[in-house]
């Protein structure tokens, strides 16, 4: 195996849905060995699919995210066929164990003794119920870095409250800053930005603790409060509230300084191009690009403030131009003129994009339960230690032999016993919770 930054680091992964799995994925990209701890007796909603064994009919009736099973067909192993899990599953191994039993707990204790990092984003206190909280396991391995990712944190009046990414956007003010001016909040649409933000910095948090451990030799607890982290991303509005005792709402797609900025309709159903023009040079370029040279010196649009004041009139002119054009062609045309513009891409546009192709962003991989697909890749490139995409998402329990035999040294008889006791398996059981 290549010598990557985290090649000597083993991570036990107790995460679910998006934020936690994304954090762990980013550690795996940098070389860490990721062991997902799963159970054939407990299916977690929206992690390996909506429910353990949906019927084909249920898949049809689920909303968009629930329905993302390969070929819209759950087949006989639906838990290995869902895009939520599989899109973030690269470089991970999967083991199964029933942590609700003392036997299962002891197996995990043995794994904790030989691991560097444990990451979890379960409901607060869930792991502690099974003797797997930080206070329970720190004595087993004083060098362990244990990160919990509660939305509201582990202290304070909301500490026992429940929430998802959608709640996170709402309570932090992120949702308040999103939306169409003059429209009620629901039109801003359900979004989960908190899930996007949390995982990335959470991986950074683990690495700062590893950096510190290098000096002290000690592990520690990391409390990743997703709510607090997200508030650090709306610093401008927070400062405005502090300085000027006000809370300005969303400006929609417009920008306070740059004008014109917005989505303009293109040829076809629901096709749009984003244009964002700031300094006068970009304005001149836009006027040329849309074949309206006289507009450049129109007194209504002479500077960014006037363009902002007369935004609606400007939108009419730009829309008349864009409406007959293909969104990608319009984007390329505007860029040739030096205008900041980008198509409002949908999934197929991103999959076919020449820039992403040139940078080999997608990784084509074969996955035993679904087939061969192009998986979205990494945020960055590194010259000495390129982030890896070695293995496709793991099937449930795919690496049980590796974990039980190679890491824990169990013999055939012990493994047979653990299969009988419901720890080792590759399918959810009939009477699971």
């Amino acid at each position, binding site marked *: 195996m290549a010598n*990557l930054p985290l090649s000597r680091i083993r991570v036990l992964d107790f995460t679910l849905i998006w934020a936690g799995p994304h954090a762990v994925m*980013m550690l795996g990209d940098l070389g860490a060995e990721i062991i997902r701890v799963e159970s054939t007796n407990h299916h977690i909603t929206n992690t390996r699919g909506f429910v353990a064994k949906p019927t084909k009919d249920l898949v049809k009736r689920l909303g*968009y*995210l629930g329905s*993302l099973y390969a070929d819209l067909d759950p087949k006989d192993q639906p838990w290995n066929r869902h895009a939520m899990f599989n899109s973030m599953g690269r470089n991970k191994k999967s083991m199964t164990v029933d942590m609700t039993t003392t036997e299962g707990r002891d197996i995990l204790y043995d794994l904790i003794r030989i691991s560097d990092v444990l990451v979890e984003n379960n409901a607060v206190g869930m792991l502690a119920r099974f003797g797997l909280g930080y206070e329970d396991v720190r004595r087993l391995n004083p060098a362990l870095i244990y990160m919990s990712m509660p939305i509201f944190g582990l*202290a*304070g*009046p909301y500490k026992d*409250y429940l929430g998802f*990414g959608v709640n996170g956007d709402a*309570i*932090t*003010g992120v*949702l308040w800053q*999103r939306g169409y001016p003059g429209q009620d909040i629901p*039109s*801003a*649409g*359900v979004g*989960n930005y908190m899930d996007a*933000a949390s995982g*990335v910095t959470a*991986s*950074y*948090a683990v690495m*700062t603790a590893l*950096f*510190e451990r*290098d000096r002290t030799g000690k592990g520690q607890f990391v409390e990743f409060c997703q709510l*607090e982290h997200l508030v650090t*991303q*709306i610093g*401008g*509005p927070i400062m405005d*509230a*502090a*300085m*000027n005792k006000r*809370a300005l709402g*969303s400006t929609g*797609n417009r*920008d306070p300084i740059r004008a014109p900025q917005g*989505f303009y*309709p293109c040829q076809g159903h*629901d096709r*749009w191009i984003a244009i*964002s023009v700031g300094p006068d040079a970009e304005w001149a370029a836009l006027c040329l690009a849309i074949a309206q040279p006289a507009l450049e010196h129109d007194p209504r649009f002479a500077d960014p403030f006037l363009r902002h004041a007369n935004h609606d009139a400007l939108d009419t002119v730009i829309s008349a131009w864009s409406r007959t054009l293909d969104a990608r062609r319009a984007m390329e045309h505007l860029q040739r003129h030096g205008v*900041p513009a980008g198509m*409002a*891409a949908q999934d197929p*546009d991103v999959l076919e994009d020449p*820039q*992403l192709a040139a*940078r080999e*962003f997608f990784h084509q991989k074969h996955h035993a339960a679904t087939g061969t*697909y192009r998986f*979205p890749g990494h945020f*960055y*490139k*590194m010259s000495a230690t390129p982030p890896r995409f070695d293995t496709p998402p793991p099937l449930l329990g795919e690496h049980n032999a590796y974990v039980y035999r190679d890491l824990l040294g169990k013999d055939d008889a012990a493994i047979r016993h653990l299969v009988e006791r419901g720890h080792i398996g590759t399918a959810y059981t009939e009477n699971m919770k």
Partner: protein
Amino acid sequence: MQPLAGLRVLDLTWHIAGPYCTKLLADYGASVLKIERPAGGDPARAAGPFPGDIPHPERSGLFLHLNTNKQSVTVNIKTDAGQEIIRQLVRESDILVESFAPRVLPCLGLDYPALSKINPRLVMCSISNFGQSGPYRDWKATNFTIEAMGGLPSCTGDPEFEPLKQADHLMEYLGGQAAAAAIMGAALHQRWAGVGQHIDLSLYEVSAACADRRMTGLLGYQYTRQIADRVPNLPTALPYGYFAASDGFACFIVAPPARWTRFMDMIGRPDLKAGQRFHDPGFWSTPEAKEEMDLLFYPWLSDRTKQQAFEEGQKHRIACCPVNTAADVLTDPHLSARGFFQHADHPEAGLLPYTGPSFRLEREGFALRSTAPLLGRHNSQVLGGTLGLSPQELAVLRATGCI
């Protein structure tokens, strides 16, 4: 001791993505030296918000927020003397972060091949719109167009309207986080293997691989040929989305229907739990179910403030919360009890609340050691002290507009 104490970062970035990256490093103990243009400095100094809406380069809320715990040195890197200062500082640095357009630093002789000769252990991170290669390398972009090209606006908002961008400049923040994560990986490798390297971070790729529906959507589309669409509140019987309380909106995520008994408890109708039809999972996908639940939920919610609804809902284990403004966040009782906002005095901006830890370590982690630096505040200390330039040399640099 803070975790990153001793890590030396040379920061050639401005606006949001780069400064948010180096804020994450600085807040956890790295020494961050921010290089600014002598004329005007970081454009975030002109971005505001300003107290009383009166522009002032030392009072921009965005700049103050993003540049805590950093030092500021002004250098005109377009001059030979300025480039020499950068080369000197590179010798004294572990990490360099820059966000110039990809053509700029090679022209100035300050690209990775040149700087790695000066300091082979250097970790250099370049943050750019489209990356350092490819047909779009020199295209123009803003947070808005980058977000659009990644696909998030197409699946955010209301299908009756145009696509909708996220709040503020979130793709730039996300790019800054991703850069910080990559840098920490490289910093560990630097320490353990003694190897430096170049990180090439593309904001477009950050936007395309965003964990909020984009990664899943790109694979999901190949699975199902369904395009991620804009979804307002879900049409489920039990509330999923944002609903009007007496003083604003509240967010309720009650789906899946298994939570229906909690919902009945929350609205004060535990008696309804005896209703046989609710026990049939099929009932919950009927139009009658939605109508019936709406009639129970809307009046309950409109009798309560968003905060009251939040606290009552949570008592019954329902994932709900208020839709807060930034002003609500600033006075939120939970964040107050946790001591999240920390007040600090700044010589020009006065006493203001600053956001606290992005995450909390058991031992020393985040610290607000200093507020954002005044422009060029550390010129003498760094150029005179660290680099050992004489007062005469500093005077010449100042007179020639180099610092």
